[in-house]
């Protein structure tokens, strides 16, 4: 395994030395797969395939098992994520209040499908279950901020606002 730079599926160069560092740090710790994955994700932003292959080789755990673990926990991501994470609630209350339409609208406005990241890597659009703000349904969360009582014709404005607030790039 070449431990220098490798390309991810998305064609980005990945600095595998960061992975080496994580593996090195937990060298003598048993069952350190999850902390290693966390550290790698914190460094790279997600878990690219070459990183997983390297961890697999170093830890002598098969790549299938590692991906199994990574896909089990919601905290890990196998594809790159945007700067801002938009979580559209699809819980029961929001569903009743038309969450589907909101999600569709967002997807159209951002030109990205659910679960994916926009081409400019600014937004990642995700679906989640109840955000715990049912009284404001339908609800979405952009990073740490909750936006409630949405309507499909107002979401675009919210996005615009975020973009304009200089809060992006």
């Amino acid at each position, binding site marked *: 395994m070449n431990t220098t730079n490798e390309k991810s599926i998305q064609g980005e160069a990945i600095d595998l030395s960061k992975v080496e560092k994580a593996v090195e740090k937990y060298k003598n710790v048993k069952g350190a797969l999850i902390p290693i994955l966390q550290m790698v994700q914190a460094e790279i932003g997600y878990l690219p395939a070459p990183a997983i292959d390297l961890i697999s080789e170093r830890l*002598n*755990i*098969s*790549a*299938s098992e*590692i*991906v199994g673990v990574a896909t089990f926990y919601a905290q890990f991501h196998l594809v790159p994520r945007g700067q801002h994470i938009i979580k559209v609630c699809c819980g029961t209350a929001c569903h009743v209040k038309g969450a589907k339409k909101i999600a569709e609208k967002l997807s159209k406005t951002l030109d990205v499908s659910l679960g994916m990241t926009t081409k400019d890597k600014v937004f990642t659009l995700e679906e989640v279950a109840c955000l715990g703000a049912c009284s404001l349904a339908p609800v979405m969360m952009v990073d740490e901020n909750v936006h409630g009582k949405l309507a499909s014709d107002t979401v675009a404005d919210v996005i615009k606002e975020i973009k304009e607030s200089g809060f992006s790039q």
Partner: protein
Amino acid sequence: MKTINLVVDDKTITVPEGTNIFQASLDNGIYIPGLCYHPKLSQFGGCRLCMVEVTERRTAHRFACAHPVSEGMIVKVNTPKVVRYRRSVMEYLLAHHELSCPTCDKAGECSLQDITHELMLSPSRFNAVRMNAPVVRDNPILELNRNRCVLCGRCVSACKEIEGVGAIDFQKRGIKTYVGTAFDKPLDCSFCGGCLAVCPTGSWQDRTLEFRGRPWEFKKTQTICPYCAVGCTIVLNTKSGSVRRVTSDDYIGINEGNLCIKGRFGHEFIHSAERLKTPLIKKDGAFHPSSWDDALEYISKRFQQIINEHGGKAIGGIGSEKCTNEDNYLFQKFCRSVLRTNTIDNLSNLRSPSLNSLMYESVIRGIASTSLKEIEHANTLFFFGTDMTEAHPVAGTMARKAIRMNNASLIIANIRTISFSGTAKNDIRLTYSFGSQIPFIHALIKIIIDEKLIDLKKAESSISNFHELPLAFDTFSVKEASQVTGISEEMMRTTARLLTKSGNCCIVCGRDVEEDPLSRDTIKALMNLCVLMNASSPDTGHSKASLLFSRSHNNSQGVNDMGVVPEFFPGYSTTSDVSNRENIEKQWGVKFSDDIFMRESKNIFELARNGALKGLYIMGENPLVSYPNGKEVLEAFQKTGFIVVQDVFLTETAQLADVVLPTVTFAEKEGTFTNMGMTVQRLNKIIQPSGVDAKPDWQIICEFAKKMGYSYSYASPKDILSEIESVVPIYSGINYDRLKRKEFYWASSVSGSRNKSAKYLLNIVQPESLEIKQNKDFPFVLLTGVSLNHQGTFSRYSNALVSVSPECFAEMNRKDAQKMNIHDGDAVVIESSQNKVTLKAKVTGKSPEGIVFVSEDYEWIPINLVRTGVYTPVKIYKETGQI
């Protein structure tokens, strides 16, 4: 072992402490439904079907597979409450099952189907929702239909625990969970089929079967795998006289239902259209079909003529590592007594000429392993010069069992880095430099003595020449050995300490050691190591360390046991000894002519090349591609006037013959094979050869003998084995009928009868290393080895194996490749002083610099025509012109 008494469904049973209720019931013939528990695998407890009512201090409901037995426990398997629970669990499982039983190859042996039927689950209270997941067919061997998966986890555990691969695991979670590979890449594994064997539903499918029969239509007969020297028991599933698939049985055979790709999926050659259909006689350079009578008449006339003109010793015979003991016994008897020649040999002996005598000596001295099971019982495993994963895959699973069950330590030493996956806590991987194996073993011995890792007093008193040891090792320095071998002193010390750790130690001597020019001394050094460990073991007589010798093919051991070698009669009695000759003469009722035993040490191909042979009789071998120097074989054939080859296919060797006789495959014959653990196992005749006019080898020999004026009155291999029983002392006590139920371990009966109080003896050798002369024109060394996916002629006619592994690669070191600007997949030429071959390069870190590695098992790649010996100096260049 402490035992526990409990009552299950009114039956009192006694089981070892620590057993779970599920296993306890299984062992006592009580059925509890369950989908995820499997005796071979670690407990998972995912299916929730095995719930039973358990009364200990109080009555509660427990999962049988997860609950250990306790004294006085009362278990009820089918109370109304339990059954109600079980039914609802099943209803959930079936809610999104595709229930495609009519077109599912598993129907009839599907646990899910059986339990559904048993619980009378119809109609369901739920509306079924089909998952409609696409069927995964990303490889030629296994199909994965996730719509049938119940997420029991058996395949995941089998892949990880037994095969050590971990190619598949649960992906995602909750309702989205599925079994799959990382990033859904195509399955890329060893294709052992373990997942298929343990899956309780039809999720995994054998693509060599594909709708060619339903489980209840198959006749299932056990027999022995025709590929490697592990000797796994396989179960052939036949319908209308043809083999439709191979399965395994966890409860029969030394392999406990584990197989490798060749055993499980390499059966298609049996019905290959390329099989030889009739005898062929060559006239004017072309083969013409002939009747058996004409062919036998012709060869007996020709051989008789040679005997009349030149004497029998002008005929050579090559026996087979793939044929049965009975075929081989008869072959050597026929050669020696009818053709009147002792110029007989087999490929295994030709490749490692010092192995037989040292192996036999080890057996007699109680150093040799008496069964492959010793791997499973080991606390320390030392693989020396062997690539277990490729060469003896199921022995590898035995090793993993030792690691899982006994927490065994693992030491692997090789010239190249080899892959072996295991989870041993002490796992040492060493690569020693080319030719330095003896200094390596000596260093271990020296460390053992210096660090007093064994009871030296005890060793001194039980080894008669112990005093020679300090003298011999006086000038030997571990430090120098470390330089020669390239292994750090620290690593060697750790290795020595692990080897001498308490418990059993099993040392596997691999083919890299056995075929090396220094093999004789290396094996002796290994024997010394074992002697030291055994002589000092607290209860002398019990072998602490044992040596397991690698053999390649299904019957490489047997062909030597049967004496198809110039230096031994069957059972390793030397032919140079007149009394042995007289004994055999008496038994066979013949008289050997005196001169036939004169040149026993000469290599058969060398004799032929010198023109000493006028005729050659080859049974089931293809030396042109399997002998380390193909050119010598070619020259030998060209010099030999008349060649008869007996085989299943028209091999490269058969093409050069004058007469070719078609023989049957293992599925169509009876007899016995002896594996590398010296375990004799019985084959069963399963089908009649169809569409080919082929005969078993022993029968051909009988008819050939008849034409030569001798009468062999064997009606079947059973008769031959009973003669072997009386003529071959090491097989004494073997019984054909008893073999049906139980294997015969010849080494344990031989070493069991040795004098246990006799003193041990060291056989000290010089710590020589092999030097490969630097060659300016041919700067690389060509090293060959084995391959998991191919072996011998049969694998190339098995589509499944060829499609998994269609191509042979030249593996080279990354640095070498960089220097020559060679990349993965580039066509490179490997050229020696006598020939060249073009292969695709595989750039790895596995081979050290200066070494190019090529597998020998792709018979259609004539790598052995390039080789000039065990290690061949070669040059490498890109195909597009020399750099």
